[in-house]
Every structure is written in structure tokens, then in C-alpha cells.
């Protein structure tokens, strides 16, 4: 395959990529009116975006629902922190090893889990993830530092760094050749990986390989009788998507160099599933939209308290106000999960294709018809109900 072949894209894909890049790079500007333009949250936007698009390569294209993707996230984080401790605070080797390591992990877990499909596959991945969590939490304490989580220490060897930089006071910060990976630079570092990850996903969606994965989701029997060995296809998809999760985990460690076992818990795996379904399974942009929405709600709604609500509903008469505040306070702060649950139920019930389907219906309404669902336009027109 020549270089031109790698970069040849359809005009539509290229437009999407350019617009997507602009939207991502301009996050600090357009998020301001939403009160979400602080670096910490934007870093999470980029990181969970990577996680969700990677997960979608498996779930969206092949239909295999993994309930253990948080394990790869954790493996990525631990590997990155160990790379920091042993070699260098430069994020590049840390991410490189995070991706390789999570890919290896995904290969082993996928090799076993993909012998089954449907619910059995999901349960197997869940079991593996819980095993990884328990290993990280207790058994492998020497490697993972158990409950406390893996952290940097000033006594770490950092072989490569120590050759170039002398003793420093305090804990070092991950830095890209001197540029510290926190705050806005940290966000842009993650954002670039999100854009690269998105580009690769676009390529996969538009490739024969992507079509075969869709074929597996659509009719595995026909795939077999057409001469395809489906196992290597699903395993490759599983490994690629595990590597995305490892990259996300690595970036978490880059922006904040510590790794804890809770990152691997099943609730974390469930969150990835929610993001993908909320945004739109099998669509290019949906999982990112879902990830951003959930992270936004988590951070904004959970920070609301009664005082904020009293200010918000201050215009109402006193008696009414206290009732309204009483009711809405159940849905904010600690109760933001209730809001999320409600939104999720509404979306799955009325828009089984997620938010992207809602978007499609609205555009179809304005362009007058064309939304009869009969046209199969390759990549992002799939309106599969969540399975």
C-alpha cells in the first residue's frame, strides 16, 4: 500500500475530519458559555472521546458488546505510570508502551472471550475485567500499589531522564520535551490524539475490513459461507479497540500521573457502553458526542447544590420555589446519575439510534424527506437499535 493510498479519503470524510478537528481544537472557546472550558474537563472530553470511538470499532461494527473495556484503560494507565517511573517523564514512550501492553492484554482476553458471542461474550469480558480489577486491587499490589494506587516517587529511577536532567526537588511532572502536560497544553496534547484516533476510525469505517466487520454484525452465518474466517476479524477489532482504551488510559496518566484500580471497575466499563449507546452505536461521531455529554453532565450537574438551585428558581414565589428546588435537587449533585438514567431511558426508547439518529431525523425534516431509512449510505446511516 502506498502513502497516497493511506491518505486518500472521500470528500465527505475529509470534510468531516476538518470540521471535527476545528471543533475539537476550538473546545476552549466554544465551551466557555457552557461553563465547561476548564482544562481538566476538556482533557477528559478528549480522553473519553478516544475511549468511546475505540469501543465503537468493536461494538458498533461487529456488534460484540464488551463489558470489560475498563480493564484495558487500567492497563494503559499502569503501564504509562511505570514507564514514567522507570524511564522518562516524556509522554511518548509512556503512551507507546500503554498501547502495546493493552493490545497484548486485549489479544489474550479477546482470544478466549470471542469463542462465544452475544450475552456469553459480554459476561466473559465482564469476568475478565473484574478479575483484572481484583488483581490490581489486591493480588498484584507490588506492581499496582493496591488500594493507594500507583504514584510517582522522588526515589524512582527514571533512567533516561536522569541522564539528561539532574536531581530535582519534588515530584516531576510529565512533559513533552519541556512542555508540561497539564492545563491547556495537556488538553491539546490529548486533542491531537483524539483527532488522529478519529482519522484512523474513519479509515477503518471506509475500508473493506470495516465492511467485513459490519458483515459479521449483520449475518455471521453468511460471512462463514462466503469464505470469511470471522474469528481473526473480530479479534483484530477487539485488539484495536483495546489499544484505543489503552491510549486513553495512558493519556489519563500523562495528564495526571497516577493509576488506581477503580479505573478498571465494572461501572467504568458500563460507562463506556452508555456513552456509545447514548451518542449512537456504529456512527462515527455518536460515541464522542455521548462521551462529551456524559462527562459534561457528570461535572456540571454534580456540582449543582441547593444554593445554586435557589438562585436559579429565585424568581418563583417562595412556596413554589422550595417545592421546585426540593424536586430538582434530587436530579443534581449526588443525584446526577438519576438525570443520566432518565436521559438514557428516553434516548433508547425514542431514539434507538442515539443522539445521531435524532440529528438525522431533524436534518431529514428540513431537507424534506429522504429520511425513509431505505437508502443505505455506507458508514453512518445505520439505525440499529441498541442490543
Amino acid at each position, binding site marked *: *500500500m502506498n502513502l497516497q*493510498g*493511506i491518505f*486518500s*479519503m*472521500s470528500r465527505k470524510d475529509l470534510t468531516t475530519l476538518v470540521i471535527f478537528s476545528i471543533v475539537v481544537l476550538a473546545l476552549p472557546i466554544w465551551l466557555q458559555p457552557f461553563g465547561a472550558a476548564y482544562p481538566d474537563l476538556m482533557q477528559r472530553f478528549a480522553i473519553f472521546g478516544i475511549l468511546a470511538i475505540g469501543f465503537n470499532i468493536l461494538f458498533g461494527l461487529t456488534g460484540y458488546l464488551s463489558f470489560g473495556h475498563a480493564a484495558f484503560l487500567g492497563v494503559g494507565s499502569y503501564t504509562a505510570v511505570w514507564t514514567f517511573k522507570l524511564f522518562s517523564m516524556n509522554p511518548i514512550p509512556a503512551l507507546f508502551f500503554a498501547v502495546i501492553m493493552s493490545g497484548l492484554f486485549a489479544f489474550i482476553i479477546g482470544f478466549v472471550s470471542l469463542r462465544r458471542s452475544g450475552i456469553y461474550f459480554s459476561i466473559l469480558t465482564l469476568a475478565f475485567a473484574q478479575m483484572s480489577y481484583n488483581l490490581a486491587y489486591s493480588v498484584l499490589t507490588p506492581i499496582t500499589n493496591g488500594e493507594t494506587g500507583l504514584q510517582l516517587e522522588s526515589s524512582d529511577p527514571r533512567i533516561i531522564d536522569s541522564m539528561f536532567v539532574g536531581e530535582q526537588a519534588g515530584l516531576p511532572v510529565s512533559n513533552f520535551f519541556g512542555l508540561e502536560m497539564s492545563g491547556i497544553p495537556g488538553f491539546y496534547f490529548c486533542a491531537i490524539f483524539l483527532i488522529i484516533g478519529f482519522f*484512523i476510525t474513519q*479509515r*477503518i469505517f*471506509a*475500508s*473493506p*475490513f*470495516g*465492511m*467485513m466487520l*459490519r*458483515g459479521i*454484525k*449483520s*449475518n455471521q*452465518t*453468511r*460471512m*462463514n*459461507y*462466503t*469464505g*470469511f*474466517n*470471522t474469528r*481473526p*476479524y473480530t479479534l*483484530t477489532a477487539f485488539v*484495536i479497540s483495546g489499544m484505543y482504551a489503552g491510549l486513553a488510559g495512558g493519556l489519563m496518566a500523562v495528564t495526571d500521573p497516577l493509576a488506581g484500580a477503580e479505573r478498571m471497575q465494572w461501572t467504568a466499563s458500563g460507562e463506556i457502553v452508555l456513552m456509545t449507546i447514548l451518542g449512537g452505536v456504529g456512527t462515527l461521531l455518536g460515541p464522542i458526542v455521548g462521551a462529551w455529554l456524559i462527562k459534561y453532565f457528570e461535572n456540571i450537574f454534580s456540582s449543582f447544590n441547593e444554593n445554586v438551585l435557589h438562585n436559579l428558581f429565585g424568581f418563583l414565589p417562595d412556596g413554589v420555589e422550595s417545592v421546585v428546588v426540593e424536586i430538582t435537587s434530587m436530579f443534581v449533585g449526588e443525584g446526577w446519575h438519576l438525570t443520566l438514567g432518565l436521559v438514557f431511558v428516553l434516548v433508547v426508547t425514542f431514539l434507538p439510534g442515539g443522539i445521531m439518529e435524532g440529528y438525522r431525523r431533524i436534518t431529514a425534516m428540513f431537507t424534506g424527506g429522504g429520511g425513509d*431509512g*431505505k*437508502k*443505505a*449510505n*455506507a458508514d453512518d446511516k*445505520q439505525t*440499529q437499535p441498541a442490543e
Partner: protein
Amino acid sequence: MTTANENVVLHVADVHKTFGGLHALSDIDLQIEEGKTHAIIGPNGAGKSTLLNVVVGRLAPTRGAVVFDGQVLTGKQPHEINQVGVARVFQTPEIFPELSVLQNVMAPAFAKRDGAFKLNFLSSLADEKQIREEAEHMLEDIGLIHQKDMHAGSLSRGDKRRMELAMCLMQHPKLLLLDEPTAGMSRHDTNTTIELLKKIKERGMTKVIIEHDMHVVFSLADKISVLAGGRIIAEGTPEEVRNNPKVQEAYLGGAH
């Protein structure tokens, strides 16, 4: 396993298949000659579909072997059997409902060209001009070119079957197995399909057809095997089978 006749492509040798105590197939010995259209007929429950499933590797025979083109198929995976040149049309169409009609027809060509697995996730489907053109040509042949961008799942039942046939033909298989290719089709669709199958016959492709419709069988088959109760009770040219009293009793007799 030796085959007496040089021209035999598929040899179903002494195959038995039991499900629990039920003898679904007993002493089946079939020799399919190259380039011929061989029909397997028989009343419901005679074991026709079981026989086909044994050939394509979906079921393992209890005893006996299936030899195709000098290779033993028994024990091979369905995708391996396809890769040696056997394609199958199912009784209820097995297609990719969520993919477009064009993609449905393109997919088999990839299996033929690239083998059972190829990691080509950075190449572009849009660059596969040759396969696309071939697929469009095939869709023109079967009259589905105007539906090429539709979801295959929204095609009519008859169109789905024709598309499935086209999917198999894209691979230029050495042996094509058809399980009731015209079941549930209108008379008109049936005739179109017969014409299509006759065209394939001219290209010298070997075919095994399971069919209920005698009109289809007698207009296509070079040779007919009659299956009843899991055994072959008669075999011969359409004329011979038509005049065979055993067949008339077991099968045709019931219908007329």
C-alpha cells in the same frame, strides 16, 4: 477415497447421519459430474437439506465422507469449504440485511480475492474499482442495479434470493449448491430465475439443486436423485425418473 469417474467433482461417499435414534440419511452415495446440474428431489422430511448441510460442513456426518475435487471436505469449517470453491444459496436467504445491495454483492468477491482473512483496514473501499464494477455488472445481469444503494433487508423476498444467488456467482464457484432457489417466488420470478440458472449452466458451472417445484427441476436438471426416508430410491435422467414407478409412488404419486 477413489472415484471411478474422472468427471466426478463431488462425491458423497457412503454418508450416514443420525440424530439420536433418527436415521436422517442412510447409505447416501452420490456422484456429481462436472458441469452438470444435478437435482435432488423428495418429499418433505426426506433428508434433502440435511444432505446439503453435510456437504457444506454445517453438519458432520455420523459416517462416511464428502470428497470435492480430490479434497475431503468432512471436518472442514464452512469458510474453508467455501474457499475451495463451493458456494451455497440457502432456503431462507442468508444475506447482510444492514448492508447495501452493492456491498452484499461485493463482499464475496473480497473473500475470493483476499482469502479468509486480510487485514486491510487502512485501504479504502472506494479504491476497489474492479470489484465494484464487477458487482455492478452482476447487479445489471440480475436486474437489481437500480436498488444497489438500498439496504438489502428492504428488498422483496424474491429479490433477496436473486441477490443471494448473485453473491454466490461473484465467486465463480466450481460447485454451486441451491436449496430451493425458487421457493416463495411468483411464477414470473421463478421463470426469471430459471433463465438465470440456464445461463450459468452454459458457463459450465456444476450445480446441485434441491427443489420442490417440478417445473424448475425438469427444465434445469441433467440428472435427478430421488430421496425418500433418508435413502436414494432412484437416480437417472429426468425422463427415467419421471417414468420410474417407485418414484411415482413415493413422491409424484402423492402430488397428482
